[in-house]
C-alpha cells in the first residue's frame, strides 16, 4: 500500500530501474532468479516507516438505539474503519477518558480519530456530548459528527457552530461514510506526513543491510540498460 513517502521513492525507482543484486552469488548462470518489482522493493523499506498509515482509522460511535448501533457499526466496518460502539454520551466520555489516561505513542491502536454521535439521546444529548468534547483540551481535536433523523436548520446551525465536523441525516448511508472517510483522511494525511518526515530522520541509519533499499545510497545504473537485472533474494 502506498504512502505519501513511497510515491516519491517509486518515481525515483521506476525512472532508474534500479534493482538490488546479491553480492554473494555462488550459483550458475541458470539459477532461477526471483524478480523484484520496484514497488516490492519500496514496500520492504516503507514498512519500517509507514505503520501508522496502514492502521485503520478508529471511530467511536454513540447511539442509544440498538438497531442504529448495529447498522452504523456495519457501515463503518465495511468502509474499513475500526469501530467502538457505545450506547450513551456518558459511556463515550468514559471511553475517551480511559484513552486519555493511556495517552502515549504506545497506545496508537486505541486513538480515536472520529466520533459519530446521535443527537437525540436520553440523559446526555449528542449536542451536550459535542460541547463537552470541544471544551476538553485533550479531546477537542477529534472531529465530531452529529447524526439525526430531524432536518432542523437551527439545530444543524448550532451543531456546526459548536464545532461539529458534519451533520448527517439518518438513516446514515454508505455514501455518507465514504465522504466522511475522505475528509478525515485528508486531515490525518497532513498530520501523518508531518510525523513521517520526523521519523524518517530518526530511521535513516536503522534500516537493516539486507533490505534492498539500503542500496539506494549506491548510485543507480544508467536508465539506458536494455533489460533490467533480476535480483535474487
Amino acid at each position, binding site marked *: 500500500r502506498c504512502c505519501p513517502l513511497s510515491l516519491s521513492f517509486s518515481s525515483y525507482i521506476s525512472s532508474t530501474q534500479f534493482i538490488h543484486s546479491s553480492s554473494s552469488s555462488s550459483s550458475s548462470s541458470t539459477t532461477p532468479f526471483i524478480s523484484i518489482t520496484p514497488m516490492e522493493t519500496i514496500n520492504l523499506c516503507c514498512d519500517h516507516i509507514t505503520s501508522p498509515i496502514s492502521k485503520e482509522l478508529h471511530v467511536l460511535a454513540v447511539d442509544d*438505539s*440498538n*438497531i*442504529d448501533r*448495529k*447498522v452504523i457499526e*456495519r*457501515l463503518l466496518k*465495511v468502509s474499513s474503519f475500526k469501530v467502538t460502539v457505545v450506547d450513551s454520551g456518558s459511556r463515550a466520555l468514559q471511553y475517551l477518558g480511559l484513552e486519555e489516561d493511556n495517552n502515549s505513542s504506545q497506545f496508537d491502536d486505541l486513538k480515536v480519530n472520529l466520533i459519530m454521535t446521535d443527537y*437525540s439521546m436520553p440523559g446526555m444529548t449528542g449536542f451536550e456530548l459535542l460541547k463537552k468534547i470541544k471544551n476538553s483540551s485533550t479531546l477537542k481535536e477529534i472531529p465530531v459528527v452529529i447524526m439525526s*433523523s430531524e432536518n432542523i436548520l437551527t439545530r444543524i446551525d448550532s451543531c456546526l457552530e459548536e464545532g461539529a465536523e458534519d451533520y448527517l441525516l*439518518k*438513516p446514515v*448511508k*454508505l455514501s455518507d461514510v465514504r465522504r466522511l472517510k475522505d475528509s478525515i483522511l485528508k486531515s490525518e494525511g497532513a498530520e501523518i506526513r508531518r510525523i513521517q518526515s520526523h521519523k524518517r530522520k530518526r530511521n535513516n541509519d536503522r534500516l537493516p543491510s539486507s533490505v534492498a533499499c539500503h542500496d539506494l545510497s549506491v548510485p543507480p545504473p544508467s536508465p539506458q540498460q536494455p533489460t533490467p537485472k533480476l535480483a535474487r533474494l
Partner: protein
Amino acid sequence: MERNQMQMHRQIATIRKSLFDQGYLDEQFVQLEELQDNSNPNFVEEVVTLFYRDSARFLYNLDQALEKRPLDFSRLDSLMHQFKGSSSSIGAKKVKIECTHFRDYCNARNTEGCKRTFQHVKKEYTTLKKKLEAYFQMSRQAGPIETACRPR
C-alpha cells in the same frame, strides 16, 4: 432440484419487488442488503429481528401511555419518535408514514386522532412483520443463490 431452486429464487425476487412497489419498503432496506456479504450473510434478517424486538417494546409502552388520562403528549411523542427512528432504519416506509401522522396529532394534542392513528401504526407494523417473516423464511428455504446457479 436445481430447477425448483431457481423457481423459488424467482418467486422470492418477485415478492421482494412487490414489497418495494407496494410501498412497504424503501431505499434503506436496499442499503441494508448492500451491507450483507459472505462474512455477514444474515445481516438484514438480524437487523429486522432487532426491529421486531424493539418494536414490541415501543408499541407496548405506547399502548400503556394511551390508557392514561389525561394523555402525556410529550411522552407519547418521544416514544413515537424512537419507534419512527427504528422503522426508518430498516426502511419500513408505510410504518414510518403512520408514525408521522401520529406525531402530528400529538403536536395538535388531539386525543382521538392519536388513538386512531395508533391503530393504523399497529396495523401497518403487523402487516409488514408478516410479509418480512414469510420473505425471510422463503429465502432460507431456497438457500444461497450460488447453489441454484452452479452448472452441472
